[in-house]
């Protein structure tokens, strides 16, 4: 697996990288004046979404446009709130809504209406499942690959003899997590994972207290469980803390998708020896570039369009292979960063520096 160096990405200077020459027809973005955009996360108060905002603001500054408005609903009002923001976006004069969709297909009517009224809807982090109303999806990683990465981490932690593990997810309605879990279950069919047994999947609703209690319950219910796999940044820290508080760090390990700045302690003390994530700063940065180029007509939402996204380099719009049943387009950002005791501290420091906290 190729690994993009997060550090270089996060700290990279805000210089436009000109066409590398090897690619033909890749658009070099030109400044096209102000484009009014809305950056709409699933809900406010989650660190990684703020990191995405930092990346989007960086891109806006590079392109000489006004920064996007970073607005969003509260956690308990996420679905209705997102629909409200998308519906009202045209009336608010927004040319693009950059959406991390938490509303499943329930957002479709609102997104279609916005597109009809001339507001583009570019999704990032989490797409509209059936693709309607969506111009293009900026994917952080390949969702199928996520499953393989999680299976690989489980294998590397548990070793050849394998053992039982459980999944601690966000809410049962979280589309990303569901897709990743399905991808992992699919990946597990490969004979090399034959010794890994998925015991159960439980949900902590991305609340730390509920995730903590679910992790404790897993420990009680499955005495032979050796690993908790949590594909959510809230779940993974809560699970790690539960394991630590039980004093079971030697018997039970934790892995999944987590924010390095929140996971340093558990990776260094061996409870979470390995976990993965991508750079949300880069994701916000790339999403802004795609949206800006679409809004200024420098590219169109069609298969095969190529462009250069600042410091991140060249990209191409393709059909989304992870949603084969529907007509959806995707820009794939890039591979995972896998963190372990060697690189977690540096990554955490880089994130803190880049998001200015």
């Amino acid at each position, binding site marked *: 697996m190729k690994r993009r160096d997060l550090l270089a990405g996060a700290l990279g200077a805000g210089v436009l990288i000109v066409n590398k020459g090897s690619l033909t027809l890749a658009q070099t973005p030109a400044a096209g004046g102000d484009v009014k955009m809305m950056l709409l996360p699933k809900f*406010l*108060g989650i660190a990684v979404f703020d990191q995405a905002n930092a990346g989007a603001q960086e891109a806006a500054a590079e392109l000489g446009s006004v920064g996007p408005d970073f607005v969003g609903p509260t956690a308990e009002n996420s679905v209705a709130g997102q629909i409200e923001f998308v519906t009202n976006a045209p009336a608010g004069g927004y040319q693009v809504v950059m959406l991390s969709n938490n509303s499943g297909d329930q957002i479709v009517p609102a997104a279609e209406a916005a597109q009809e009224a001339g507001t583009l809807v570019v999704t990032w982090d989490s797409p509209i499942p059936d693709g309607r109303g969506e111009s293009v999806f900026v994917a952080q990683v390949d969702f199928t690959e996520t499953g393989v990465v999680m299976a690989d981490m489980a294998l590397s932690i548990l070793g050849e003899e394998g053992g039982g593990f459980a999944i601690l997810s966000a809410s049962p309605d979280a589309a990303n997590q569901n897709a990743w879990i399905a991808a992992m279950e699919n990946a597990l069919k490969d004979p090399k994972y034959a010794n890994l047994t998925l015991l159960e999947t439980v949900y902590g609703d991305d609340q*730390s*207290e509920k995730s*903590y*209690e679910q992790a404790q*319950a897993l420990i009680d219910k499955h005495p032979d469980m050796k690993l908790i796999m949590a594909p959510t940044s809230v779940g993974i820290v*809560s699970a790690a803390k539960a394991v630590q*508080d039980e004093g079971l760090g030697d018997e039970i390990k934790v892995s999944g998708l987590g924010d390095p700045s929140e996971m340093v302690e*558990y990776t260094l003390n061996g409870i979470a020896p390995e976990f993965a994530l991508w750079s949300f700063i880069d994701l916000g940065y790339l999403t802004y570039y795609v949206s800006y180029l679409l809004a200024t007509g420098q590219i169109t939402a069609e298969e095969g369009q190529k462009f250069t996204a600042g410091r991140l380099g060249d990209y191409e719009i393709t059909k989304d292979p992870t949603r084969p049943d529907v007509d959806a387009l995707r820009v794939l950002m890039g591979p995972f960063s896998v963190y372990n005791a060697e690189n977690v501290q540096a990554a955490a420091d880089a994130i803190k520096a880049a998001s200015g906290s």
Partner: protein
Amino acid sequence: MSNALLRRIRPEQFREVILFLVVIGLLVFFSFQINDYFNARSVNRLTTGLAIPLVVAVGQVLVVLTRNIDLSVSSVCGLSAYMVGTLLTRQNDLHPVLALVIAMLIGVVLGAINGLIVAYGGVPAIITTLGTLALYRVVLVEFSGARTVTTAELPDWMNDVPSATLASAGGYDLRLMVGIALVVVILGQLTLRYLPFGRRLYAIGSNPDAARTAGLPVRRDVFLAFTLSGMLAGLAGFMFLVRFGNITVTAAQGLELQVVAAVVVGGVNIFGGSGSMIGALLGVLMIEILQQSLLRWAGISEFVKDAILGLLILVAITADAVILGRLREMWVRVRRRDRELAQSVPADESGVVHGA
């Protein structure tokens, strides 16, 4: 129930006993469903889980007794947890007791705001605390700037407190946090029983107008009840920080309904005037047993749990009401017979509780 016993005691005094029996019934039921249900680790888990809702419930009882309600407790708890957590990440050497006091002070301020608006502003409690439930959460989100407080940034003593144990027998621990919660319950019960302030809360809740006419300091007492509720929610925030370590802006969300449910289940009359801390304790215990046991019930799919929880709550409160109703009928019958026998003047002391 023997008639002789009924002659002496009012059915309401059985309330806690009935609840206690319902709780025992639940424990027996789950012990047949879940392997090794009473092992030390599970029991410790259950008692530890009680601590936070219990502390908040004690404050809630004080408020509910006065015919009010405090829905803002979850936001107060979350805000106090987050603020103290942030403070501790910046000043790792802050003394634990000082941190605790600060958490309670944050609660006092937020509770006093509620109390001022309700008692002196004349705004109904449900409106006030629905409003501050949202407002305090807004303050938290704005204050946090979406940062998460993580265990890694907290001082080391934080890691030891959750498992700190006061007494232990055969692996069954009395954890420090549970000890604190029990002390709060006992102090609460003593207040209600023996302090004039506590007695006045009942009078205010039974009949606010009469209490005012009688010259009781209704406004001051209601204000004080809200302030105390805030203080205890602040204390719960500190416990929340210690227990969960990772504090996001959604911390403690939904706690208010869990606590109100526990208090109502515990037989505290939502229209004020009757109830006890022991009842609230049993109510919290019941809800917590249901929740924790459903999490561990292997035969039950993740998707059925809430449906069962709702049903069990309904069954439990109905069982409680039906048993209590029967007792009350028996009590009235016995009393009436006694009275007829004695041919005495029928003085009205039926003791029937209105509402509920």
